[in-house]
């Protein structure tokens, strides 16, 4: 009974966040300081401005459908896990509250308190199914990475506080010019590293593909769609507001990290055959696209081309919102599939479109949106990001133009590979014939799950057809952030970027596409006469093609990419052959393994972990076990402090 109540708690919380966000966007703002709640560090300071309101809307858009999805998803858990679902729902509410307050935080202490609350809540949510060792390892890695990130943010904030003399961020913005640049750069790098690790950008992304699949689907949907955005929120705050106008290399650094994250993210997504890990890697890719927008914005900001900077930030924030919508839709779809078939491996799936028609159609809409196909919302934000990058020729410096050219190439390659990745994800999972028994009896999921996915699909279509719904508030957000309107002119249907540089009417494109398709279909229906249609076997060179083993599998589909980008995967291939007893020539079974290795994990983290292990082994010698040596240490430290502190 307990879990029913706590489940009912999450939905109103999400609605409250949505109301707060909508009010904030329409101009309402407040600043409140509660000194007595936390005596040290200036107490709890919360403030709402347009950027925070926009992120509140993102949080609500991600959390509300997942809360509705959770109803049916948790009901079918095994009975002894009943206590677990109560903790799950409670954890979810704490998670929502901490994220919402984090966005409102205005001083160092509140920011870090809610940041830690969010990390702990998400850690426990990941560990709900901790009977599997894989989940425990994922949880452990997640905890280590988030707290390393927290340490960086703490150090960065403290350097800023020490050099600006105050603990409240708004004070930093005014004092930004006075602080000496080297301190500001150190602070930026540290805090950016912390936020990038939470956002899952490439060098710090390794926790993401392990933590998200381990969590239950609606939790990984919230984490992937919403929690990642708070890293982006932090980056926007320090880049454009708290640390003032930074030097050029800040923007170039973020742009390059974005380009690398986008390309590597989608390349790892293409070869993965675990549905939820595939979606996690595609989150890394979309964070890369968002970072491209923010990096471009930072560069334009440092050249005082503020209208272009506003355009790039608007594109990045629009992609944040769009990504929340279609990534939540895809993760909930994956949750529905796992719920119906019990497996996450797309090699075993197939033919689900006939057995789960609505989930299939909604997953298709999600795949189209994430591959940025015209009538849906992914296209609008990726198109805007492209125009922001293409407009970079107004920057006078030649080296920066080259960096933008590389960023454009990376974004284009990502767009192509994302389309290929989701053709594979959707095609192998839903089409042709089922490849395993458990998939054969798959059945459609309860209506609450389909309802939440349906809401997200409708949102994706609406934002795709009429982007003005999101662009108008974004105009105010960027105007407040950068003091200048974005270089955008938009009416109900059209969007014009960069003066006369580029124009598009997504509403009309969607409408014309629908009208033309309907006209062609109607034309056939009328003139076609008796459309003679006959059902027969698939053409397999005359052989009977009834069994699914003739189909193309996920690994086969990814093979061209694995060969073309072999320098990144550095695949390990192993072939084991079991011959029959009598003679080596008659083979019983052949096992072919084609593993790809992650450069980042082996190149950076493995040696790092080994170095830590070695140094800690040496330090352990200090723990000699007798009390006298401990006393000696304390005495020495005291003396040293006295000398230093003089």
């Amino acid at each position, binding site marked *: 009974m307990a879990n029913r109540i706590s489940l009912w708690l999450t939905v109103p919380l999400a609605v409250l966040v949505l109301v707060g966000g909508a009010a904030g966007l329409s101009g309402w703002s407040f600043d409140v300081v509660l000194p007595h709640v936390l005596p040290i560090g200036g107490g709890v300071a919360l403030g709402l401005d347009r950027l925070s309101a926009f992120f509140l809307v993102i949080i609500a858009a991600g959390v509300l459908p997942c809360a509705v999805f959770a109803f049916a998803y948790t009901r079918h858990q095994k009975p002894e896990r009943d206590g677990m679902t109560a903790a799950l729902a409670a954890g979810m509410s704490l998670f929502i509250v901490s994220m919402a307050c984090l966005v409102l935080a205005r001083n160092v202490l509140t920011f870090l308190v809610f940041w830690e609350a969010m990390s702990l809540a998400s850690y426990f949510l990941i560990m709900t199914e901790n009977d599997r060792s894989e989940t425990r390892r994922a949880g452990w890695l997640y905890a280590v990475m988030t707290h390393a990130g927290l340490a960086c943010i703490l150090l960065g904030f403290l350097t800023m506080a020490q050099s600006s003399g105050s603990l409240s961020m708004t004070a930093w913005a005014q004092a930004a010019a006075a602080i000496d640049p080297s301190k500001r750069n150190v602070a930026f790098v540290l805090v950016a590293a912390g936020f990038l690790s939470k956002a899952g950008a490439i060098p710090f992304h390794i926790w993401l593909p392990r933590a998200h699949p381990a969590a239950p689907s609606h939790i990984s949907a919230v984490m992937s769609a919403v929690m990642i955005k708070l890293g982006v929120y932090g980056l926007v705050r320090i880049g454009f507001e708290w640390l003032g106008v930074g030097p050029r290399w800040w923007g170039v650094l973020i742009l390059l990290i974005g380009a690398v994250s986008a390309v590597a993210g989608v390349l790892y997504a293409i070869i993965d055959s675990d549905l939820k890990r595939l979606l996690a890697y595609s989150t890394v890719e979309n964070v890369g696209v968002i970072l491209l927008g923010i990096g471009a914005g930072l560069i334009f900001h440092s050249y005082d081309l503020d209208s272009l900077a506003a355009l790039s930030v608007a594109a990045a924030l629009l992609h944040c919102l769009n990504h929340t919508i279609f990534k939540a839709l895809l993760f909930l779809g994956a949750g529905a599939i796992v719920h119906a078939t019990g497996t996450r491996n797309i090699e075993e799936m197939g033919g689900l479109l006939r057995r789960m028609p609505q989930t299939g159609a909604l997953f298709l809409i999600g795949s189209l949106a994430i591959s940025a196909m015209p009538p849906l919302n992914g296209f609008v934000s990726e198109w805007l990001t492209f125009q922001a990058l293409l407009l970079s020729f107004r920057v006078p410096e030649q080296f920066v133009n080259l960096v933008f050219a590389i960023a454009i190439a990376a974004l284009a390659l990502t767009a192509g590979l994302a389309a290929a990745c989701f053709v594979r994800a959707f095609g192998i999972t839903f089409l042709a014939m089922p490849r395993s028994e458990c998939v054969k009896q798959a059945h459609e999921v309860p209506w609450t799950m389909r309802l939440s996915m349906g809401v997200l699909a409708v949102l994706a279509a609406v934002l795709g057809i009429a982007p003005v719904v999101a662009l108008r508030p974004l105009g105010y957000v960027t105007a407040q952030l950068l003091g200048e309107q974005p270089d955008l002119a938009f009416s109900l249907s059209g969007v014009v970027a960069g003066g006369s540089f580029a124009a598009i009417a997504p509403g009309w494109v969607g409408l014309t596409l629908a009208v033309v398709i309907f006209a062609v279909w109607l034309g056939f229906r009328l003139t076609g006469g008796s459309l*003679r249609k*006959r059902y*027969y*076997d698939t*053409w397999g*060179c*005359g*052989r*009977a093609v009834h069994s699914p083993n003739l189909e193309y599998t996920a690994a086969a589909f990814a093979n061209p990419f694995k060969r073309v980008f072999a320098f990144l995967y550095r695949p390990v291939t192993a072939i084991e052959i079991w011959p029959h007893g009598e003679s080596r020539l008659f083979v019983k079974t052949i096992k072919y393994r084609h593993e790809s290795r992650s450069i980042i994990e082996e190149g950076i983290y493995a040696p790092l972990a080994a170095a830590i292990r070695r140094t800690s082994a040496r330090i352990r010698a200090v723990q000699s076990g007798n009390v006298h040596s401990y006393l000696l240490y304390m005495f020495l430290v005291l003396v040293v402090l006295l000398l230093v502190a003089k």
Partner: protein
Amino acid sequence: MKLLLRKVIGTAVVTEPGRPRDADIETLGHALSERVRKLYGRSLHIREVDAGSCNGCEIEIGGLNSPYYDLERFGLHFVASPRHADCLLVTGPVTRNMADPLKRTYDATPEPKFVVAVGDCAKDCGIFAGGYGVFGPVSSVVPVDVVVPGCPPAPRAILAGILKAVELRASGSVR
């Protein structure tokens, strides 16, 4: 590249004019509507099925694509899949393991379709008659419209057979 262009400019178009008219074609066709005949007369996609032939007929059929016979000028075109095809060009005696695939290929071809059997083997298993691996002539597996005898028949004969199949179908003449 230079040599190729010099060769191209040097040789004129060598396609033999006119439509080949050979008498020794056996016709077993059945009626085909006038409208379809007019359409097929100008655009016919052929799927060549080797039902166990010794490839003598295939070499001759290959000759059809050459500049001399050039079946493209009659609107004929070889296609990769029976789904795209209108006419099945079957060669060779239907061996035991090719009987079922031939039937499947025939069923996979959309209506209106017809079959041209090429070579003596297709007509009556030719020299392979009675062999243990031979299932029977082509007509025992799929309904055949035109048979082009000869071992192997000249490309002109095959071309005439295909064109006859289209015309015959229209005029509705029965054996």
